[in-house]
């Protein structure tokens, strides 16, 4: 490409938040008609940089040029006017509006909607024709699968005349098939001259789809490479500044006695929809069982029923040889007493109380423990001493047990939860999304800990939407689809085979 025309240039971008310098002297050139990946750990400054480009923040210094001309992007409207569109990680859609209404939102043009609606319809038709971005314009967003909702976001940006499209972690919520489809769409948009900036932490995606890739670390842009001239290993090293294990080193599992048995468990959600359908599974001491599946196929409800948080409709759970009735109102405390620990999927709302100090969160769920009581009062000294021990053992940073939990990074927050649950020395450890939103360095640490727990004879159930993680950790893989366990595979199962199972297609059955 050589001297290709730049679509967007950043020159010397600097941004501080209080004492934290989130972006340091960042310069970046994205060529027109390319897909440019930006990778980096959590907290590396990617989102800040994109927020500056899209006008959520103003840079303290530096300039932005679009098509060679300096632009002042004071707010998202200015970004849109400059031809920049953004697809957020969490969609900005109104669930009970139709596709047309969502695309029109913020670009209605007049008080009466009829002319706007007509314009949106004809534009949607054109976009559909030119980019193969077909979606029913009258469908309600809440009825659309996630992949199509994302497409609506892309359509929104294109409708507003975006030539430069920023996608923030776009595949986090997609099935492998949906992700593939997204990549096809992106390639096609590139063919038509659009420029795409892809923010991600998935190295595989960067390798698969980008033309160039830039790596951020601690607020700095440390390298830009042609994708064809780099490798996953090099990028990973650039991201963390040292080599990381992309696979988990672990020996053969030595499964012993059965710790947890789930028989014919059925769980409904608050609307009465069956989310877990007749699920049975066994978990033995010294093994890691992974549950793979696209988010929303009942994994969350399964975890909540097993850990006593959610009441089941029918079924039976046997923990350490004792039969429990999950159809009675559950008591997570009782499960803890019986030797079960739970690292919940949603650490922000369940696993942690973000406004609490770190040491307060380090006893969540174990607040009854006599070790933390001094007469009728909490023993703050004991709580803090215990918290400091865990901070040291799990290398939680910053090492300040009085710091508000919200001020820790995602990876360190997850370590706070893991330290709390693992150090209790449970027989059965239930982990939902062990490394969601966690940076590469912490992922390695967490995976090693989980394997160490297994080798210490614990029975571990892991639920993750990251197929790589499930494959790296598990001794047995269960695949969940539409509330059922649709298959069990060994750790050597191919990604393709598991991917099909996750989409509800059993290759073996199909072959028979």
């Amino acid at each position: 490409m050589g001297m290709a025309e730049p679509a967007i240039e950043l020159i010397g971008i600097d941004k501080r938040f209080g004492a934290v310098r989130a972006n340091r002297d960042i310069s970046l050139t994205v060529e027109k008609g390319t897909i440019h990946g930006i990778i980096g750990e959590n907290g590396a400054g990617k989102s800040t940089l994109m927020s500056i480009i899209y006008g959520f923040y103003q840079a303290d210094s530096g300039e932005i040029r679009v098509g060679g001309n300096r632009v002042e992007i004071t707010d998202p409207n200015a970004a849109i006017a400059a031809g920049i569109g953004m697809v957020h990680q969490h969609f900005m859609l109104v669930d009970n509006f139709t596709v047309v209404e969502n695309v029109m939102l913020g670009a209605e043009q007049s008080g009466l909607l009829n002319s706007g609606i007509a314009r949106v319809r004809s534009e949607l038709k054109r976009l559909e024709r030119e980019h193969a971005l077909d979606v029913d314009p009258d469908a309600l967003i809440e009825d659309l699968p996630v992949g199509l909702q994302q497409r609506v976001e892309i359509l929104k940006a294109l409708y507003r005349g975006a030539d430069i499209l920023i996608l923030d972690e776009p595949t986090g919520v997609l099935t492998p098939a949906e992700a593939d489809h997204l990549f096809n769409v992106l390639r096609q948009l590139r063919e038509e001259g659009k420029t795409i900036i892809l923010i991600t932490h998935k190295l595989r995606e960067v390798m698969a789809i980008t033309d160039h890739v830039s790596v951020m670390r601690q607020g700095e842009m440390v390298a830009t490479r042609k994708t064809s001239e780099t490798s996953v290993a090099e990028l990973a090293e650039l991201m963390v500044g040292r080599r990381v294990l992309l696979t988990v080193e672990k020996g053969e599992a030595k499964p012993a006695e059965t710790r947890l048995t789930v028989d014919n468990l059925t769980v409904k959600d608050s609307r009465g929809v069956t989310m877990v359908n007749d699920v049975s599974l066994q978990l033995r001491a010294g093994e890691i069982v992974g549950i793979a599946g696209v988010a929303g196929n009942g994994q969350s409800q399964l975890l909540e029923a097993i850990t006593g948080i959610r009441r089941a409709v029918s079924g039976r759970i046997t923990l350490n040889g004792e039969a429990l009735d999950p159809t009675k109102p559950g008591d997570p405390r009782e499960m803890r007493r019986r030797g079960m620990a739970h690292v919940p999927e949603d650490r922000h709302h369940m696993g942690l109380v973000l406004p609490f100090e770190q040491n307060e969160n380090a006893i969540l769920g174990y607040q009854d423990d006599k070790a933390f009581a001094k007469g009728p009062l909490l023993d703050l000294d004991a709580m803090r001493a215990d918290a400091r021990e865990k901070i040291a053992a799990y290398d939680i940073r910053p090492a300040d047990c009085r710091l508000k939990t919200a001020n820790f990074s995602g990876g360190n927050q997850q370590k706070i939860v893991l330290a709390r649950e693992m150090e209790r020395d449970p027989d059965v450890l239930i982990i939902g999304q062990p490394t969601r939103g966690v940076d590469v360095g912490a992922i390695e640490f967490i995976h090693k800990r989980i394997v160490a727990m297994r080798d210490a004879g614990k029975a571990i159930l892991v639920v993750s939407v990251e197929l790589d993680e499930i494959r790296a950790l598990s001794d047995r893989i269960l695949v969940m689809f539409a509330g059922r366990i649709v298959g069990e595979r060994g750790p050597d199962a191919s990604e393709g085979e598991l991917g099909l199972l996750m989409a509800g297609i059993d290759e073996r059955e199909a072959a028979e």
Partner: protein
Amino acid sequence: MSRPYAKLPPIIDYGVIPLINLVVAFLVAGLVVLAVGESPIRAAELMLNGAFGYAEGVGFTLYYATSFVFTGLAVAVAFHGGLFNIGGEGQAYVGGLGVTAIALGLGGILPWWLNLPLAVCLSAAFGALWALIPAYLQAKRGSHIVITTIMFNFIAAALMVYLLNDWLKVPGTNALETPTFAEGGQLPKLRGLFELFGANLGGAPLNVSAFVALLACLGVWLLIWRTRLGYEIRTLGHSPRAARYAGMSELRLVVVTMLISGGLAGLMALNPVMGDQYRLFNDFPQGAGFVGIAVALMGRGHPAGIIPAAILFGMLYQGGAELAFDMPAISRDMIVIIQGLVILFAGALENMFRPAIGMAWARFRLRETGPSAARTGGV
């Protein structure tokens, strides 16, 4: 990836921002005074003088503040549990029955210092009882506690008028009040305390229940920040799902939190009933339950904030009364407007100036520390 926000130091969070809110409230109130053709400066002078200028005024201010501390604590405790208790007024009103039962029944038998702890227990019990039904309905049936506690204020008002009129009033009179309590049912005034400073309390009704209020502050602080129950209440308030995960019973916590909240509101009855009028009388809370909401908001739910906020509102009550008396153009209703402005700026618009102040602070910080310090801080 979360957006990093500049964290403000406590002095700004708890000192500068409330102060600015207050100043703005008084500036706007000044405009109102100006609009009716009076001098705002003179009005402020009269108000401050009325509230703090002489011993008796101080006594009145602190008497009102005592009531507001109780109701402010009541709202704050519920608020920590994520519950908005608007029913302090009704709970305080019904709490008066507990005070009256002791003071009327035992006032002629036991001395006041034995009756006081009994009255504390019974007024808290009655207040708690009045909060129990809304709490249970919220926890069990999901009836919104804001709605039910408001409705219970009206029920309390009607119930108390019925009880006063049909059962408790002095036979043959028209006033909705009980007979005056015997000496053992009367809390001493803090005359002696004032005399220590060479001041004369005069006719101000400041009484021993002010110390009960201070003890309640200490108790609430211990409860919320030092006990397991307080830990559980705060967990529920911040994140009901985390509470569920941790095995805390939401039903139990909602009910217990509201019982404590209602109990604190019930204690407020000590001050006017046993400490001032020595009888139960119609509508004695006089809005203290509602002022408690503003006091709790302004005090950030912390006793150390609630005490000054209560004194501020005590000043508005006492100084406002003097102002209305001395400045005929300013009616009692205008005082309510000024109080309303304080509530508006200190409570409802609490965070209005926060972003600007945060930005100013960040700029100031940067100039102080320089870029090198910022770099080491950037993890």
